[in-house]
């Protein structure tokens, strides 16, 4: 089984896409990005662990399906995750995504997951919390990881869940120091 591509590689994909769409501040309009990639977003309620899916149709149509029962921030993450599959994984026509393990900090649990899923999750984080923007904010806010209110404020600014933001910032700190 191949390994997931490195964070740096995934970051470049996300940064290029953000630049193409002219996005330079949060919150990142993820539905516009999906449209830019030629995907149509559709919704339906699903009572269970299903987050969403990506389908490439026979006539070139691309559909991102989202579980409308999930929290809006979670739906944004799902759309970003599916955009990741769309951009990074050309070979497979259908991706069905159950609950993502975004809040697991230990590497062991993510190793058990398909590398495509790891890449799509990394991409979603890089797209919704772009490197340049988040690093600037960490410096500007003098972010204290122990301060729940600060984390919540920053999560609101990016329209992501507090878990997704905490995970992102923890990973950044790990790579910087």
């Amino acid at each position, binding site marked *: 089984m191949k390994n997931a591509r490195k964070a740096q590689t995934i970051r470049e994909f996300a940064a290029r896409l953000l630049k193409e769409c002219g996005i330079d501040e949060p919150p990142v309009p993820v539905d516009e990005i999906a449209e830019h990639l030629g995907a*149509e*977003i*559709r*919704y*339906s*309620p*699903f*009572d*269970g662990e*299903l987050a969403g*899916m990506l*389908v*490439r*149709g*026979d006539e070139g149509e691309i*559909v991102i*399906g989202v*579980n*409308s*029962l*999930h*929290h*809006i921030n979670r739906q944004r993450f799902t759309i970003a995750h599916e955009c990741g599959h769309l951009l990074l994984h050309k070979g497979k*026509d*259908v991706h*069905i995504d159950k609950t993502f393990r975004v809040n697991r900090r230990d590497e062991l649990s993510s190793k058990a997951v398909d590398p495509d899923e790891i890449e799509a999750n990394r991409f979603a984080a890089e797209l919704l919390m772009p490197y340049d923007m988040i690093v600037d904010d960490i410096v500007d806010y003098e972010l204290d990881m122990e301060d729940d209110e600060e984390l919540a404020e920053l999560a609101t600014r990016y*329209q992501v869940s507090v878990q997704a933001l905490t995970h992102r910032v923890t990973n950044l700190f790990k790579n910087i120091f």
Partner: protein
Amino acid sequence: MKRLAIVTFSRLVCKLRSVTDGVPDPLYEAFGKLVHQHRKRVDRMTQDRLGALVGLSRTSITNIEKGRQHVSLHQLYRIADALGVTPDLLLPVPPKPGTSKLAQKLPPGTDPEITQWAATLKPRKAKPETA
């Protein structure tokens, strides 16, 4: 005059029955379940708060979610608006397996519930309100 009053009264009774007939109906139960699920998705959206937003009591919301109270069309729109979804997402969809091209793309062995879900996906025109 008296007859008119009786006629009006019986009409009122009929109307009340149609609104709250108390008999469980699978269609309204399915609708109520969707309202309940979409309400739970929104932060701090209690039955009280939803009631206040749509001009109904908490008890009415309980009854609607249980399928005991039948909503009117304008109430459907108000509830959808309060929950930040388009009204169609609250409408139960009868199963029609195999009618969606999208669902047909799914690989064999896909969970039937997921296939059914894929067949009911719809675009969202209005942007959801961020509560």
